[in-house]
């Protein structure tokens, strides 16, 4: 896939949204891939012991999914020069087959003359925003 051209982009453009179901199995898989084995991401008892309502998703998994929205749109994932998030609310993942739906949307917040654009991303789960100040800076062709 080739990198999107900056000449095709204007401020305010909306990126195609992304709806992703996150299940306990996804958390186990992400734990293994990332090396983050904190038990609050797979063990209900451990989660409750630190005051959480249930097992929560890795914040870094939510951030990775948010960046899928951006890399798919940009065409070339290597175009991402910077990405940042604040983790504002945990994504609670119940022990069932459906898991939790997380919905991502994004739009072009800034377009610079040097061909870089800044995407502002929103992420919502259970009717609440779960990421704050989520942005990605992309060097377009």
């Amino acid at each position: 896939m080739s990198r999107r051209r900056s000449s095709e982009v204007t401020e305010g453009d909306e990126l195609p949204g992304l709806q992703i179901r996150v299940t306990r199995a996804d958390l186990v898989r992400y734990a293994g891939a990332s090396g983050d084995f904190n038990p609050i991401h797979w063990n209900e008892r451990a989660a409750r012991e630190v005051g959480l309502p249930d097992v929560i998703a890795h914040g870094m998994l939510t951030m990775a999914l948010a960046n899928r929205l951006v890399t798919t749109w940009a065409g070339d994932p290597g175009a991402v020069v910077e990405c940042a998030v604040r983790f504002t609310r945990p994504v609670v993942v119940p022990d069932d087959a459906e898991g939790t739906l997380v919905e991502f949307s994004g739009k072009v917040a800034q377009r610079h003359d040097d061909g870089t654009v800044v995407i502002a991303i929103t992420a919502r789960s259970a009717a609440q925003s779960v990421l704050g100040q989520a942005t990605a800076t992309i060097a377009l062709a």
Partner: protein
Amino acid sequence: MALDPSFLGRCYPAAGTYQVGREKIREFAEAIGDDNAVYRDPSAARACGYSDVIAPPTFAIILALRAQRVLVCDPELGLDYSRVVHGNQSFTHHRPIRAGDELAATLHVDGVRTMGGNDMLTVRCQITDAAGDPVTTARSVLVVRRENR
């Protein structure tokens, strides 16, 4: 227990290097459900101008976590890791990470403070390649939650 402010400015040099493999990148891409061919197929990566498959933008967390482990396990810091939550995260990519890279990660403590009764630790992981050139800068804010009442 408040964190020791004298940790500000400390630096934990890289303990060994990390060899980036094609299969690890594929495993990470699968874990985030991303089927982009640039993560899997060397010829697709070459068509985008890369010498081998590249890693997703958040792949560097693997190296950042390894580098952080040395700090959070430092008994002098007295951190209760079970109370640590991730507050913020950012990555600045000087170039994409790609298969075949031999990376080194150095951790810097950029902030130690208390806000609203929670301790906050700001760390920066500088990732460089075998030539010593910068690849990725990963910044994390770790929040140590207060004890349950």
